[in-house]
C-alpha cells in the first residue's frame, strides 16, 4: 500500500451514528396518520378527502414558497409540512369550505412555523396555530358539523365544502336534514354535553360512530396509530400518557364532586378530539418539553386546562387552547424541571 494513495478523512468522534433522520421520523408520523385519513374518508366521503388534500397542499406550497423567498434549500422533503396539513384537516369539520382550509394551511405554516424560523424553532404546534386563526376568522363554519356515514358521501360533496371564497357558505341544514340517519342534531358529543346535558355513550366515542371533526372521532383507531409510533420509537409515549392522565385526574375530581353535573373521566378522555390531540398534537416534539418531569407537568397542565375550559368556558374546542397554552409554558416548565444529574444529590448533601 502506497501511503500517498490513502485519502484520510478527519472528523471528530463519534464516528458512527445510528438514528432515524428527521425526515424518517416525520414520514412515520405521516404513515401513522394514513389510517385516520382513510377512516375519515370512509365516514365523511369525498368532502373529507378534498379537505385533506387542500390543507396538505396548502401547507406544503407555503413551506416551499417561504423557503424560496428566503433563498434557503426547500425543506418540503422533510415531510413536516405534510404532517401539519394532515393534522389540520383532521381537526376541521368534514364539510369545512375548501378555500378556508387553504387559508388555514397557509396560516399554520406562515404564522406557526416560518415566522419563528422554520422547523425546530416554532414555539407552538403549527397546525393548532392555523386552527386557532380560522377559529377566530370563521367561527360559524368551524362549528358546523355534518353527520357521518351519509348515503351519498362518495359521490356528492357536502354543500359547504365547495363554497366560493369570501362568500357565505351554503347552509347545510337542509342537506343535513335530507341525509341524516335518525334525528341528527348536528351537535358533537361535547356540545351535547355542554349545552344540553346529554352524554354520549363512551362506547360510541371509543369507536367513533359520532359527529365530530374529520379525523378525531375514533379514539380506538387513534390509539392504534399511536401505538404504532411508540413501537417504532418515533413518539415519546410519555407525552400522550401525561395528557390523558392529566385530563382523567382533573375530570375525576369534578366527577367525584358531582357525578350528575360533570361528565365521567372516560367521557372526557374519549371525546372532542382529546385522544387525537394527546397522541398527535401535544406530542409535537418541537413545542413540548424535553425533560422527563417537564413532560409530566406539561401533560397535566394541558389535561387540567382542557377540563376547565370544557366545563366552564364558552367554547367546546378546549384541548386546542390547552395545548397552545402548554406550548407557551414549555420554556418556563423546562427551566424549572432540569433533570437531576448523576452525582448531584450526593454533592448537595455534602454541602
Amino acid at each position: 500500500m502506497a501511503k500517498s494513495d490513502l485519502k484520510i478523512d478527519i472528523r471528530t468522534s463519534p464516528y458512527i451514528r445510528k438514528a432515524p433522520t428527521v425526515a424518517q421520523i416525520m414520514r412515520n408520523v405521516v404513515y401513522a396518520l394514513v389510517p385516520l385519513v382513510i377512516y375519515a374518508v370512509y365516514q365523511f366521503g369525498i368532502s373529507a378527502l378534498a379537505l385533506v388534500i387542500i390543507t396538505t397542499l396548502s401547507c406544503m406550497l407555503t413551506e416551499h414558497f417561504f423557503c424560496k423567498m428566503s433563498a434557503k434549500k426547500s425543506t418540503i422533503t422533510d415531510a413536516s409540512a405534510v404532517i401539519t396539513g394532515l393534522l389540520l384537516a383532521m381537526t376541521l369539520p368534514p364539510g369545512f369550505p375548501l378555500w378556508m382550509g387553504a387559508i388555514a394551511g397557509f396560516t399554520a405554516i406562515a404564522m406557526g412555523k416560518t415566522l419563528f424560523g422554520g422547523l425546530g424553532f416554532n414555539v407552538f404546534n403549527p397546525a393548532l396555530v392555523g386552527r386557532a386563526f380560522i377559529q377566530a376568522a370563521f367561527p360559524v363554519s368551524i362549528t358546523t358539523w355534518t353527520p357521518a356515514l351519509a348515503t351519498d358521501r362518495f359521490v356528492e360533496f357536502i354543500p359547504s365544502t365547495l363554497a366560493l371564497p369570501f362568500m357565505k357558505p351554503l347552509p347545510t341544514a337542509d342537506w343535513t336534514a335530507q341525509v341524516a340517519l335518525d334525528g341528527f342534531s348536528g351537535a358533537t358529543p361535547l356540545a351535547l354535553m355542554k349545552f344540553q346535558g346529554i352524554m354520549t355513550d363512551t362506547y360510541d366515542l371509543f369507536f367513533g360512530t359520532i359527529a365530530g371533526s374529520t379525523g378525531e372521532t375514533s379514539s380506538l383507531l387513534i390509539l392504534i396509530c399511536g401505538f404504532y409510533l411508540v413501537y417504532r420509537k418515533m413518539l415519546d409515549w410519555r407525552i400522550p400518557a401525561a395528557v390523558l392522565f392529566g385530563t382523567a385526574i382533573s375530570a375525576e375530581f369534578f366527577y367525584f364532586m358531582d357525578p350528575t353535573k360533570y361528565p365521567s373521566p372516560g367521557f372526557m378522555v374519549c371525546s372532542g378530539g382529546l385522544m387525537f390531540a394527546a397522541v398527535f398534537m401535544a406530542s409535537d416534539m418541537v413545542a413540548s418539553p424535553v425533560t422527563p418531569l417537564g413532560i409530566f407537568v406539561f401533560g397535566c397542565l394541558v389535561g387540567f386546562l382542557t377540563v376547565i375550559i370544557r366545563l366552564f368556558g364558552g367554547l367546546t374546542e378546549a384541548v386546542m387552547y390547552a395545548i397552545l397554552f402548554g406550548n407557551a409554558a414549555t420554556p418556563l416548565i423546562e427551566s424549572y424541571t432540569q433533570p437531576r444529574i448523576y452525582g448531584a444529590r450526593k454533592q448537595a448533601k455534602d454541602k
Partner: protein
Amino acid sequence: MDLFKLFKKNTFSHGIHLDEYKDETNAKTTRRLPFAPELTLPLSQNTGKPAKAIVHKGQQVTRGEIIAVADGFMSVPLHSPVTGTIKAIDIAKTAEGGKQPAIIITTALSSGQHLLTSDIRNDYLQISREELIQAVQNTGMVGLGGAAFPSHVKMKIPADTNIHTVLINGCECEPFMTTDHRVMLERVEQLLHGIRIAMKCVAAPKAIIGIEDNKLDVLHAIEPHLPTDGSITIKAIITKYPQGAQKMLAYALLGIEIPSGQRSSSVGLAIFNVATLAKIGALLPANQGLIERIVTITGDNIAHPGNYLIPFGTPLSFLLEHVGFKGEEASLILGGPMMGMAVRSLDMPTTKATGTVLILDERATKRDDILPCIKCSRCLQACPIHLNPSELGLLAAQRQYDVMEEKYHLKDCFECGCCSYVCPSNIPLVQYFRIAKVLNRERHLQDG
C-alpha cells in the same frame, strides 16, 4: 430501605445499545507483529509531565532499557521497546496532535530482540506501600484504558481517604475493541497478581472485576482462579455503552454515585482498567518496564484484523501494511468509534495510549446535513449523566458557554458521544461541548 435498589438491574440508567462489531477479533489469540525498522517514541506518552531523555544519538540500547526517566511524581520513565541504536532525539508528529520531542530508534534487525531481564521478585507484596508505588512508577505504567494516566499516581491515595473496594474495569464497552477481552482470557494469573498489588497500594480489602455480559467466557475463565476468601470477585453487568466509564461502572456494580466534580476515591473506590493491572502483574515481579501492549487492529478493508502485541513507537503505516489494509479513503481512528481520535497521517507512531487502531470507510466518512434541533429528547434519554444535551446544544449555538457551565452542568459531560450518536438532526453535540469546555477553561484562566 430503598425500594428502587431492590429492582435495580446491574447497569446504570440511560446510555445506548451499540452494534458491537467484536466478532472479527474477539476470538483471535494475541499475536506478535514483527518489529518495525524504526520506532518513534514521544517523550510525552502519559498524562502529566513528559519523561526526560537520558540517551544520546548513536547510543546502543537494549530492549527494556530505560531511555528516559520520570520527571517528577506526575511522570513515568520510558523504556526502549527494541534493541537498536538511537537515531535521533528530535521533534516528531504525534497522534495526540502537534509535534513533540521524541526518541527515534533504529531497530537492530540482526538482533534476537532479547529482553533485558533481572531476577523475578516474589516479595513485592511484602514491601511497604510507598516502595510498591515507587516500583509501579519505575515500570513506566500508565492506564491502558486510553487516558494514559500514570498508574502510580492513581494508587497514591490521600491519607484521609479510605478505599473500601478496588473496581476493575473489564467492560470494554466501545464497539470493535477486544484487547481487554483477550487480556482477561489469556492473562488471568497476571491479572490477579496485578489486582493484589493494586489492593495493597490503596489498602483496599475487596476487589470486584466488572465485565459486560457479552464476555461471559471471561467469567468462566477467571472464576476458578479467584481466591476462596471472596476478597476478589467478578460480576457480569448489562452490556451497554458507556458502561466502561468510571461513574457508570461504580453505579452498575455497587449502586454508588461518584459525586459531581469529585474523584472516585471520595466514595472509597479505586478504579483500574483490567489491562493495566494485568500488565502491572506481569512487569512488577520481573522488574521490567512497559514497552508494548496489545492493540486491536480492525475495521473495514483489513485482510487480517486481530489483536497484536505491538511495541510502542511502531508507525501506523507499518501496522496497516502487516494486517493487509487495502483501501483508498478512510477514517483512521486511534481508539473506539465513540471516543477515539482521528489521525491525520500514517507516519504517526503508536504510544502507550494506543489500544485500538480502527479503520472505517463510508460508515464514518459519509457526511449528512446538520438540521435544527427538533427537541425529540433522544439525547436526554441517552445521556448517562442525565444532562440536557438538547438545551446545551442550543446554548452552544448561541455561544452562551457560561450558562452551559453554570446552569446546565457542562463540566459533568465526559464526552461519551451518546447524544451525537442518537441525534436525528446530525448535530455534532459532543463536539460543541468539547469546544465550549475548552473556551470556558481559557476564560477561567484569563479571569485568574
